[in-house]
């Protein structure tokens, strides 16, 4: 047997950077080769929301908050936030649970020439990219499905900074949930966590409309999705929204906290 030629010596930083890029290339290759997985995961739930709340409800005279246009406008930002959240959970958390629990495919990645923390950060990079791709996919659908088109008003500076930040936060949340929870509990916790996160996250109604029920309005502030929804509402509509002076720092702080905790848990799970 002849052995492969030895690789030329590289600095640890160059090796780690190349490895990080290759891990991401592998994940994007899988994504590109199996687009059905990604699309079904991304589309089904938000499209149904838009279809039921933005198309059916106004057509059958069900009471919605305001006109059909207002409903569609509210849903537009909400759907962008929801798909971003779902990618964080389904592209990062669930695969990690399987990987750390029984497939152990991650073991080969952990032997790549980069620190274990960087393997975790690559998962977050992937989740962020997938979140943004999902938002791109859902955007036109949220425009055309509702009974009346939403009143689109794009603030580019907000959109181009806030969408990546929201995606990063949701991917970090995914990594945190995928590593911090006992794998045996994950499925149950998903059911218990995901539903309130989604319904209380101001995706289906603007936060300002909750002023009628102050305790719910307060509760919604504990949901990270609220900041993504309200931020995106500021980015793509001219509806009233939570102040950006709150949205940016809270998302940045939540991202930092989740990243710190998640990489710590990750390292602890993979190195005994």
């Amino acid at each position: 047997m002849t052995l492969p030629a030895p690789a030329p010596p590289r600095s640890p930083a160059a090796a780690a950077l190349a490895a990080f890029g290759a891990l991401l290339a592998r994940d994007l290759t899988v994504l590109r080769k199996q687009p059905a997985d990604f699309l079904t995961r991304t589309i089904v739930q938000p499209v149904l929301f838009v279809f039921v709340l933005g198309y059916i409800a106004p057509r059958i005279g069900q009471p919605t908050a305001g006109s059909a246009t207002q409903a569609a406008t509210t849903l537009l930002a909400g759907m962008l936030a929801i798909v971003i959240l779902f990618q964080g959970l389904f592209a990062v958390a669930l695969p990690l649970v399987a990987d750390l629990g029984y497939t152990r495919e991650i073991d080969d990645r952990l032997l790549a020439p980069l620190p274990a923390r960087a393997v975790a950060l690559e998962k977050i990079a992937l989740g962020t990219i997938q979140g943004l791709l999902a938002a791109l996919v859902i955007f036109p659908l949220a425009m055309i499905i509702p009974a009346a088109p939403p009143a689109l008003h794009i603030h580019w500076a907000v959109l181009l900074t806030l969408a990546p930040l929201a995606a990063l936060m949701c991917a970090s949340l995914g990594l945190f949930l995928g590593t911090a929870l006992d794998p045996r509990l994950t499925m149950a916790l998903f059911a218990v966590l995901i539903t309130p996160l989604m319904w209380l996250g101001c995706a289906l109604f603007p936060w300002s409309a909750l002023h009628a029920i102050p305790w719910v309005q307060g509760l919604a502030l504990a949901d990270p999705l609220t900041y993504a929804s309200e931020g995106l509402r500021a980015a793509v509509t001219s509806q009233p929204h939570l102040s950006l002076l709150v949205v940016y720092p809270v998302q940045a702080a939540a991202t930092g906290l989740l990243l710190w905790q998640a990489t710590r848990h990750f390292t602890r799970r993979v190195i005994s």
Partner: protein
Amino acid sequence: MTRVTAAAPGPAIPPAAAADAAVLTESLGKTYPGGTVAVAGLDLEVRRGEVFALLGPNGAGKSTTAGMLTTTVRPTAGRAWVAGLDVAAAPARVHQHIGVVPQRNTLDRRLNVRDNLIFHGRYFGMRPAAARAAAARLLAQVSLSDAAGKRVDELSGGMAQRLMIARAIMHRPDVLFLDEPTTGLDPQSRLAVHDIITSLQAAGQTILLITHDMTEADVLAGRVAIIDHGRLLALDTPAALKRSVRGGTTVTVTADGTGPAQLAAALAASVPGARDARPLGDAVLLTVDDSHPVLPAVLAAAEACHARLREVRADPPTLETVFIQLTGKELRDS
């Protein structure tokens, strides 16, 4: 001797031997939270180019040792260097120098056979074209060219194991770690893996083989470290380990014409160096250090008590005999 803990402050100055050895450990130890001591002060040196076996029963600390050397387990005592690099201080750099075939199948199920190798090569900085060429060459060498486009969950256990070995050597590591590489394989696949290991050794690959299979260690390894309860019990070539056993050779004498009890008494009395002679069925089991010098005496003793010899068989010691003598228990019991 002072024990240096992995967490000890101060400059990490490797001993001169660390640069020369493929693997060097100094009082390496691992105590898991909760107090379980898996490895207790292990001193090992694996030389470049050799196949070195860590032999021991399940729970002996073999896999924990391998885990520490491959950076997935953090040492709690002592130090270890792989390719001259401190495993605790520079894990990511160590990765560039090691290839690992773990006990479980960790192939990437979302990629086909060929892409498992290509992406692994790319993790180690190979350019896509170079990775493709190396993958094709390695697949041919482990007889998987025909399966290159298959999904990895379509592979048999033996094929998956060959692919994992190919993956582990894809980036040309200095040290290849094989953790129980043939456990659970059928005899043919086992031989195929043994052939690959032998040819890798011929090509100069340093291999650390972790196994509880004594025959495997005996056949493949240049040197064998026997460990149990996280401690090194013996370390030498298989031949020297077997030579070290006292009374490890069993000579089985089967004869007609004389009862086995009488024959046993005759053999015990007249064979020089006989440690024990006891009847078993219609045969006598004679325990000696070495069969060569005693066979003439066996024949003479049998003739003297008018036994008609049917069969004389000498079984030299195996590594199992060595292990039993060292630990007082059989490998499979523990």
